[in-house]
């Protein structure tokens, strides 16, 4: 997948989408399982993960997204 051309949004559609507001309701999740979002923002935890590739990409994400 890495060799593909970057997807570009046509200008007309992009203009439409900039006007859209994406809404997420706080009580909507069903709670039958959690998403470990906080855990994977925890640098110490990620360092101990078996997945070394994920660790490398975590570094990229921190740098590119300024987290």
């Amino acid at each position: 997948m890495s060799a593909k051309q970057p997807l570009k949004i046509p200008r007309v559609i992009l203009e439409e989408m900039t006007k859209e507001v994406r809404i997420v309701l706080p009580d909507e999740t069903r709670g039958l399982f959690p998403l470990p979002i906080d855990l994977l923002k925890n640098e110490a935890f990620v360092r101990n993960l078996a997945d070394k590739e994920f660790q490398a990409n975590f570094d990229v994400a921190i740098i590119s997204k300024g987290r």
Partner: protein
Amino acid sequence: MDEDITPGSFLFNIGFMLTYKCTIACPHCIVEAGPHRKKVMRMDRALSWIEQAAKYNNGYIKACALTGGEVFHDIDTLRTLSDYAHSLGFVVSAVTNGFWATSKRTAINLLKTLPSIHLLCVSTDAYHQRFIPLANIRNSIEALKDLGLTYSIAVCKDAEDTQQFRDLMCHLKDFADEDKIVTSKTFPVGRARHHLSQEGFPMVAEPSRAACTMASSPVVFPDGQVVGCIGPAITIQSPHKLLLGDLKTESLEEILQRAETNAILHTIRVWGPYRILEWLNRIGCSEKMPSSYMKDCTCDVCYKLLSDERLQPYIELLANNEEFAERTKYGRLYHLGEEEVLQPLESQHFLT
């Protein structure tokens, strides 16, 4: 692995619904779990399916959630599967009602035998508390804190806040961090269809216009069915677009690759099911649309759309509509930053 995968991305997490057995039978249980239920995921299948999930797209899926029923009902199975999932690189979470946390010491001792579970979600609410005292929840959370483990508390509430719900939230905040408590609304499917009055749900003419966050995480059931979310759609018996496939006849890779190009699923994630209603109106089936919806309930819009057998041929048409698929593709990129998973959509010519 693509560098942009973040929590909330499609397939960041996958769920395994291991058992319908539970120590209790709550009146609001969506999967109708209980002590009388027998069906569990066979061990050989569970190991194979977890391995398939770990191998999917070179380790693209990062987290694995073990749920039920009550997964602590069979500790040996829970230990075997969580250890295996962890050994394959997954971040492992599990969900429990906390029945086993009869004291803090008991809870600590048990959790120490489950070292591969990184995050535990404890469910409690007015319905659970008929069977599991709040003391168990406190014991389990204090044990998790002592062990340095991450936790969350899932609280199901009725459509309108009750005094009982508000009291419970106050009690929980005595020993749990507020940001670890997540609430969800009961929905009249599963056992709740028989036990909860639908009159308590405020109805409105306009559907919720909110996006769905749970359809990013498919769930594998004991019989091999893979469903696109863990919400009310899991109770729909007839074929629909969130029923992603059957592991008895296909590999997980085949099912998930097809899901990557499922424009209905991704429209629900990007904008919400109301967007499908709008498109269905455009292609001329407005007279078949539901006349009312539960207030502020995205699941209700989705459930009404997918459970109405008359609408499924139109939804199938929409799924194969090139303009609809294109818009969904651009919506994923603009709103969710998901470009990396779009390649199959172009190569398969929208054959979803």
